[in-house]
Every structure is written in C-alpha cells, then in structure tokens.
C-alpha cells in the first residue's frame, strides 16, 4: 500500500493531551475530535491539515494518557501516516488498533522538513522524499502486528476468533 503526502513537522514528546485535550473527550467521533486536534500546540493545525498530510515528529510521540481518542483525532483530521523517531508504547498500540499507519524511523524524522512531499510504501516500510529523492527505511513490524494491520485492526481479528 502506497501513501503520498506533504510533511507537517513537530518536535519531541508530543503528548496525547496536546494531540486531543481532555476537555473534548466526551466524544469519541473521529471527525468531532479532529476539529480540536493539536489545538493547544498549534492552533493553525486544523486549518493546514489536509487529506494528504504526513505528520513527522521526534522522539516519544504520543506520550502520556492512554486515550485512543489521540490517534482517532489524527486519523479523523485526514493525516495519512505518522513518522517519528520513536513512539510512546500505548500510542503505538492504539495507532495500530485504529488503523493509523505509523513508522518508526529516526533518520527520516530528522531529515524530512516541513512541506516536503513524501511517498511511503507501507508494506516495505520505505519512505521516499519526492522533494530531495532521499530514501529511508523504517523499522519493520513484528509478524503478529503485521497480521493485525492486514486484518484492518485488532477487533476484526477478535471477531474472527470468537465467531
């Protein structure tokens, strides 16, 4: 599966409280949550994000609260994938479970700049900058998680097991 998009870049330790502040957590509708995505960090985010955005961030992306509303808000906003140096572990699980593509790649997260055009081969974990031509290889997912991703999220797998 291939994704194309334009980079929006953020720093280290982007926590789930800024991704989606708790005051909006009475809803779990991705489109509703998306209206407030990142607003405490970058009030321009919701105006600039498009259906072709790739988020690029530093280390420990998604730290803090376990709220699954965070990857839902990002996905609802139209973001195609998140590339980071590293992900906080709960966010990592949540993103896979809700079907938000994530890629762990320090090199790409450092090299890619705001506004760069990128193409991502999700199956191979290869990130290509269409602006500079540079190629990056993200960490591969363990086989079990590849299965979850292939099934389109954890609940589909659960449903298969119980039916």
């Amino acid at each position: 599966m291939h994704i194309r998009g334009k980079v929006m870049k953020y720093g280290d330790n982007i926590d789930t409280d800024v991704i989606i502040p708790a005051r909006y957590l009475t809803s779990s509708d991705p489109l509703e949550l998306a209206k407030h995505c990142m607003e405490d960090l970058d009030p321009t985010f919701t105006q600039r994000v498009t259906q072709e955005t790739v988020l690029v961030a530093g280390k420990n992306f998604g730290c803090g609260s376990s709220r699954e509303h965070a990857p839902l808000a990002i996905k609802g906003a139209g973001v195609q994938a998140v590339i980071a140096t590293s992900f906080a572990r709960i966010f990592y699980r949540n993103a896979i479970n809700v079907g938000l593509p994530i890629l762990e790649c320090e090199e790409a997260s450092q090299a890619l700049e705001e506004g760069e055009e990128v193409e991502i081969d999700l199956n191979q974990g290869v990130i290509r900058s269409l602006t500079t031509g540079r190629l990056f290889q993200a960490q591969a997912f363990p086989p079990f998680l590849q299965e979850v991703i292939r099934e389109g999220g954890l609940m589909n797998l659960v449903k298969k097991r119980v039916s």
Partner: protein
Amino acid sequence: MGMTITEKIIAHHAQKERVVPGELVQVRVDLALANDITAPLAIKELKKHGIHRVFDPHKIALIADHNTPCKDIPSAENVKLMREFAREHGIPYFFEGGQVGIEHVLVPELGLVVPGDLVIGADSHTCTYGALGAFATGMGSTDIAASWVLGETWLKVPESIRFVYEGERQPFVTGKDFILYTIGQIGVEGARYCAMEFTGGAITALSMDERFTMANMAIEAGAKNGIMEPDEKTLQYVKSTGTTRQPLLYASDRDASYREVMTIDVSKIEPQVALPHLPENVRPVDSLSRIEIDQVVIGSCTNGRMEDLRMAAQVLRGRKVYPRVRVLIFPGTPKTLLEAEREGLVRIFLEAGSVIAPPSCGPCLGGHLGVLAEGERCVSTTNRNFVGRMGHVKSEVYLANPYVAASSAVLGYIASPRKL
C-alpha cells in the same frame, strides 16, 4: 540466567517456563479496567463489530471517575452506556455515585488486585498496581475491549531497569520526590517500553501509599510498568482489603538481567518540584525563585490516599490558606474521605480554607471541578504538567508532594514547609 519479577509474572500468565525481553507473548489477564472516558469507546467498538459476549464479567472493572459527578450531558451519556453494559453482562465491578473512587486508589483498596496478578487498564496510570508486586500496564480502549472478549492480550516482554534506593530520607521527602527525582534523572522517555523495578532499603521503608505514588508515575518516564517486590507491608495491605484471592509472591532472581542498574542515595534528595511543561523538569523546591500561585490541588491517583491527606493536614493544621489561593482537596475514595473525617482532617482542611471535592479525577486532566484560567499557576500533587493539562493553554502546573503543595497554599508561592 534468572528472571526479573516482571518476566516471572508475564511467563506465568503466558503459561511458559520463561520469557525474555523483546519476546511477544499472549497472556491471560486477571483484571481489565476502563473509566468513563475510555470504556465508552471500548463498548462502542464491541457493538460496532457485533460482539455481544464477554469472557468473564468478574475480570472487568468499570469505574466512572473522570468526568464525574457528570459534568455535562455527553458525560452522563457515557456513564449511562457503562451502566447498561455492566447490567447487560452481569459485571459486578461497576462503580459510580457513592461507590466510586479514583480508579487506581479504589481498585487496590477493594482488593481487586493482588500480588502476582496481571492487570491491564484503559488508563495510562494502571501501572500504579505494580506497588503490590503485580504486573500492571495501561493500554487503549480497543485493546481492553479485545481482552474483555478473549480474557487475554498480547504483550512485548519489556527489558527491566533496576532502581536501587538507599539511605535515610530528609524531612518532607516522600515517595513522590523519589519518583520525580528519578524522572528528572532519566527523562520522560528514559524508561520507554521498559519495566522500572524499584528496590532497596529506602523502598522497604516507604508506606504502601508512597509506593503506589511511585509506581503510578512510572508511565511519566515512558515505562510499561513500575514494580516492587511484595513484602510484609504489601501482605498486610492486601489482607486489610478482605480479599479472598490468593497472592502469588514473586521476586527477581539474583542473576536476572537488567538493561541498567541505577543506585540513588535518597539522603541527597530534597523535596522536588516538576516545572512546566514536562514531568522531567524537576528542581529542588528550595532552588526556586518566588513563583506565586493561584491554585493548589491535593489528591488524584498519584497522591489521593490517607498518607497524602495526613501530610497535607500536618502542614495546614492551625494555618490559613493564603487569601489569593484556592485549595482543592480530592480524597481518592469515599473510604479515604470517611477516614479523613474520622481523623479530624476534614475539619483541618475546612478551617484552613480549603474546598473538599468529591473523589474524582476532576482538574488533574482539565476536565472539571477546578479548571485553570489563562496565566494561572497551580501546584498540584498530580502526575502531569503538560501544556493545557489542567485548563487554559497558557496556564501552568507545578508537580509536587502533599507537604509542598500544602505549604505553598499557605505561603502563596511555591515553597517547602521549612519556609513556614
């Protein structure tokens, strides 16, 4: 090669002789909990996929503690959804109203977790139960929903980091200061994906309440779990809950493997304050310039237990809250509040000019019951000081122990009780 306590508990629940860090395993779950923010999402996921059964209703806990007493109509709808789900599946551990407390204070208090258990929760501070010698970790709603159906979950076995605390602590230094100091040393991702194993003579000397505080904040260093080997104090605590469940006592082998071993001399630790906007921005309280404050919050899953209230009351007894400052006290559970009333602490708090709030997560996550306005500063015994965490994006949260929170309330600026 031996195993750590974390590896042993995971191996037991994976029905394996041994596990090694990095291995992916399927584990049986003893309890899977969710609150009024995360449970509705889990319940909706199940409904969406047409799944109408749970593995074992006794292994589910639903705790309406975040936006309760319900702050608005959507919050009330969320709790209603939990209530109906509990009724539909015969889930006995659904808590609201006069039964509800802050989940990570309530669950151990009721004896729903015992040493050796493997617990997952749709709340990042689920790691609190590591203080009992259990493996406990936070996940998201979908993972919890899956475990409700299957009775199990997948885990990557974490590497362990061993933190050895030795020495005698100074006055007004608590478990909160040990953990803040440690996060200051290793950073907010210093233990990412790892088990933080807390050990040493200074841990043995801590009360259970302080141990809960330490394990609670393991997530603030990015850890998967925080854990302590159970001892006499642990067993005493478990016995006091009246649980009939049998604890399984694990300890790390001497030749267990660690990513790192850190020794911390607690006699050198002063009361700590984490400045905005990360829990790793810690400073000794006495090194701070005069930081004037508007609000003080004492409570939460981090510091809402009896010991915490006693610490605050020790400082507030016979004193008055500084006129400009609002003090909000959140006892962890109804039982904590009742005990505080019996010991005369409620009177001390009220006479000092504090507000006694119901057991709720309330302002910790900027939900309700004490949200901050633009430019306001709050000293809080909670666990996170992220941008906008307790309210306005331009408000500030300073994390501290209950002594420091109470003395700051009296003085109107951040200071330890030594300044009184």
